[in-house]
């Protein structure tokens, strides 16, 4: 019989898989940032399930992984803010928002710049 904790525990890996898929296959950087955040939240959820299974000493969960997840959410936010700022600057400079260097338009732009 599956309990709720196992259910959430299986949700975490599913989110990691979905996030990783989006991160690799989606060509738009902003979608990659979104997928990266889903991948991260799946990892956090796995931590949360480990914390919940470690319930002891009158607590409903191990506070150590919970605190690690809080730190993780903050650092993921800092990385996201940084990535978005980089992306918007790239768009301002080149008028494009793509990581694809084999694009012919981009190739001529880079030669002009150098």
């Amino acid at each position, binding site marked *: 019989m599956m309990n*709720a904790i196992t*259910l*959430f525990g*299986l*949700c975490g*890996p*599913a*989110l990691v*898989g*979905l*996030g*990783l*898929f*989006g991160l*690799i*296959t*989606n*060509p*738009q950087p*902003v*979608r990659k940032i*979104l997928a990266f*955040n*889903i991948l991260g*939240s799946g990892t956090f*959820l*796995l931590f*949360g399930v*480990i*914390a*919940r*299974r*470690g319930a*002891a*000493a009158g*607590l*409903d*969960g*191990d*506070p*150590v992984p*919970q*605190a690690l997840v*809080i*730190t993780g*959410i*903050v650092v993921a*936010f*800092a*990385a*996201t*803010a*940084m990535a*978005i*700022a980089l*992306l*918007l600057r790239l*768009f*301002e400079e080149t008028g494009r*928002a793509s990581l694809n260097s084999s694009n012919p338009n981009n190739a001529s732009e880079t030669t002009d710049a150098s």
Partner: protein
Amino acid sequence: MTLTFIFNVVLVALLLTVATWIIVARAAFSAAVAFVAYGLLLALVWVELSAIDVALTEAAIGSGVTGMLLLGAASRLRETEATAVPAGRPLTSAVAVLCALIAAGLAAIVLFPPSIVFTLAPQAMARLPESGLGNPVAGVLFVYRAFDTLLEKVVLVLALVSVWSLAPDRFWGGVPGLHVYQQPNSVLTLLAQLLAPLGIVMGIYMFWTGANNPGGAFQGGTVLAAMWVLVMIAGLQNVPSTDRRALRYLVVLGPSIFLTIGLAGFLLANGFLAYPPGYAKPLIIVAEAALTLSIGVTLGLLTAGPPERVAR
């Protein structure tokens, strides 16, 4: 099958549906809107996992502030979407198979956990009363793993420095490019006027109660940041230029005070970030108060983005 279990099944189904939509949606903007909903659903999952502190952080940061940044970016980049070349079908299928394998591997860990349950809860609780804190998560953040928490605050300051550094040279020290919707008598203006005072009280309460109950400097600071951004967007207060000295002092105030308390541990206690016996709670409250303010200002400025106008 209890009612709670059915609720949890529906919650997980919704969460996975929204996550899939975020990955496959055609427009980046609708994916970003879905991301806000995703964060709130995830916060509910954290509540169900009895991690209220994490739920508050996820709702405030994961959904709220990150969502706002992504919405802004998606709306600015809308015109570039048509030119993006999607990955080929063989590659997509190969990646899908590999990602499914990784997910299955992680799921196996969940389904077949080691027979010994690893937990640090008894150790965390054993000496928690000495710190005077009642919230074990706050205890881990500010007593056992205070160095991590200090570095986490420094990461935020570094993120702000990096974001500001991405401004073109001529705008350095200028005004961030936050979009302001100044319409007197609009619903937004009324909301900013009504919600901001309540939100500020709530933010301070969340920091204050964090010592003994779920909450803390981070969650409180995020609420303060949200109120500040709301007031700026409604045009009730000007977006400050980033060369304002007071603003910069506020950004580093929290980490500096926390670092000072940490260094004082060498003299007054037995090492870096150690608290002298009996003074742990007051020192943590002082550090948290300063951090709440700094986090509020730093997150507000990160949301406002790099300078895009020259200061007048």
